[in-house]
């Protein structure tokens, strides 16, 4: 049996919202019955702008939100719904880990790096103190931190170092899937490159699969094999990264690619109010340029 590390099947999420002019039926669909798979040890990018549904997708997979319909399977097993034992919940938590965008708010400010990692190991594995120390040292080394930083509190670390800690903490659980939700977006260019290299090393060394959620097409090719492009709750294009970047078929993907500043690039005004033109033949929901109501 060779299951994908992660399978998302007909996943759909609808939020109830206030009935307004823009939203007469009182429903906002963040994700329309979409499916994709992630191979073991693979790396799939989910690319989109705000309101595309990419973060909703991540939250549904981890279990921070409940899907309206559809299923999430990890290693061929459907992620349970409803009440379950704490042991099963913990096992489920281990399978999929997530690293968020903001390295400043995702760590406990009073916990030293080493203790933060040891806590995860104690929770999930039966290890003695020596094994645990060894594993902590291994994790620290894997993400390119040193001994001094391992003994530090988060406030003594820079943004890039904190993000490495968040990655090490996620890896401590030995997940099958690591979700990186805009994990390098807040970092300075010179630091972003370091973390992207760390991510490439980690995947090679551990065989963990990545679901890489981002708005930034340029970083996708450094970390991912495949890509899905999302817009307004739908997948508009998918394929191997090199194909999509070089021969994008969907007008929205081409528009995204054309918007990325690069040497020799000239910005152009394309529409009167900055909405990408709605591609014909795609029944997209009416997107108002007014801010979408939050759930």
């Amino acid at each position, binding site marked *: 049996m060779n299951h994908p590390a992660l399978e998302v099947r007909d996943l759909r999420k609808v939020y109830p919202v206030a009935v307004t002019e823009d939203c007469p039926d009182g429903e906002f669909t963040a994700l329309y019955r979409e499916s994709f798979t992630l191979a073991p040890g693979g790396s799939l990018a989910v690319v989109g702008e705000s309101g595309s549904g990419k973060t909703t997708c991540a939250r549904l997979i981890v279990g921070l939100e409940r899907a309206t319909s559809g299923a999430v399977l990890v290693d061929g097993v459907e992620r349970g719904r409803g009440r379950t034992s704490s042991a099963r919940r913990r096992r489920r938590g281990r399978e999929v880990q997530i690293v968020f965008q903001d390295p400043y708010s995702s760590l406990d400010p009073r916990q030293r790096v080493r203790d933060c990692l040891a806590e995860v190991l104690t929770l999930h594995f039966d290890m003695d103190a020596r094994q645990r120390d060894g594993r902590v040292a291994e994790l620290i080394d894997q993400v390119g931190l040193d001994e001094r930083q391992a003994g530090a509190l988060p406030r003594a670390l820079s943004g890039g170092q904190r993000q490495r800690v968040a990655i090490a903490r996620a890896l401590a659980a030995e997940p099958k899937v690591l979700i990186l939700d805009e994990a390098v977006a807040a970092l300075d260019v*010179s630091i972003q490159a370091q973390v992207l290299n760390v991510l490439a090393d980690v995947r090679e060394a551990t065989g963990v699969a990545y679901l890489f959620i981002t708005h930034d097409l340029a970083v996708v090719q450094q970390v991912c094999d495949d890509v899905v492009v999302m817009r307004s709750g739908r997948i508009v294009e998918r394929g191997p990264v090199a194909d999509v970047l070089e021969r994008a078929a969907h007008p929205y993907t081409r528009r995204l690619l054309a918007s990325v500043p690069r040497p020799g690039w000239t910005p152009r005004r394309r529409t009167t109010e900055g909405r990408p033109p709605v591609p014909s033949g795609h029944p997209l929901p009416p997107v108002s340029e007014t801010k979408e109501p939050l759930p």
Partner: protein
Amino acid sequence: MSALLSIDRLRVELPAKKGSRTVIHDVSLDVRAGEAVALVGESGSGKSMTTRAVMRLLPEGARLSGEIRFDGVSIPGMDRRALRRWRATRVGMVFQDPRAHINPVRRIGDFLMEGVRLDGRLSAGQARERVSRLMRAVGVADVDRRLSQYPHELSGGLLQRVMIAAALATEPDLLLADEPTTALDVTTQEEVVAIIDGLRRERGLAMLFITHDLDLAAAVCDRIAVMYAGSIVEERPAGALTPDASHPYTRGLLAARPEIGRREPRLRTIEGRPISAFEVGDGCAFATRCPMVRDLCRRERPAPVHVTGGRVACHFAGEAEPQAVVGDGAAR
């Protein structure tokens, strides 16, 4: 020298728990009338602090030395009246987060009208006419409805257009744009910078454009100044930066950014992290991360030297880099 804005040997210290902290060491930069200049740097480089110094928006207790002149007049020397008048008529500002710089309980129309009517030259009708024209110029459709809405009803991209309209409303000579598109989606960013660029050229407006994105800076500016830890390390014509960059930091920045269509087995990185201005010792600020560092760099801070079309502050500017630095940038 006929610079519209002239910053000369600017140094800024902020009060700290013990004594003071230097946030800007040495910034000299000219922006001529109608010219667009970018100030590019990572967090803590002092690029935003420089614009704050220009606008006289530094925190309480800040100590400033050097000179900033606008059209020959010293900005630090202005009295309150002159300062208010200068800000209201000669310079417009656009910030990264439009929501933090607009009154949330006032309608868009009232917010825009306030700026236009401040100098008392226009009637309500004339002001309304000018505001509507500006809103159309920044690409807003359905202007009347927008003017009667509140900021929370508008998306980030639309609100940033409103801020640009507000900055242009008083017909200034200089636009200060501090990361105006960093919080926007990439397609919206393209729209917004295209709008800024178009209007600026149309009106012969000068611009100081603050960003962390070298490619974006090169696309909309004539000249680029790269800042690191409170000093300008390199200044070049926009077109010459990518091929001719000669400061190791600029080169490192250019190499670190992945480029679409070119997958590197490993990205080239700059080791360590960007340091803040107050951490800089006697030597070159970049010495702790520089792949070409030598003893002289740790001892002596390099003065900017002239190179083709610009200047560079590096003892060994333009020398070939050792090849061994490619690859492992993780702090191991």
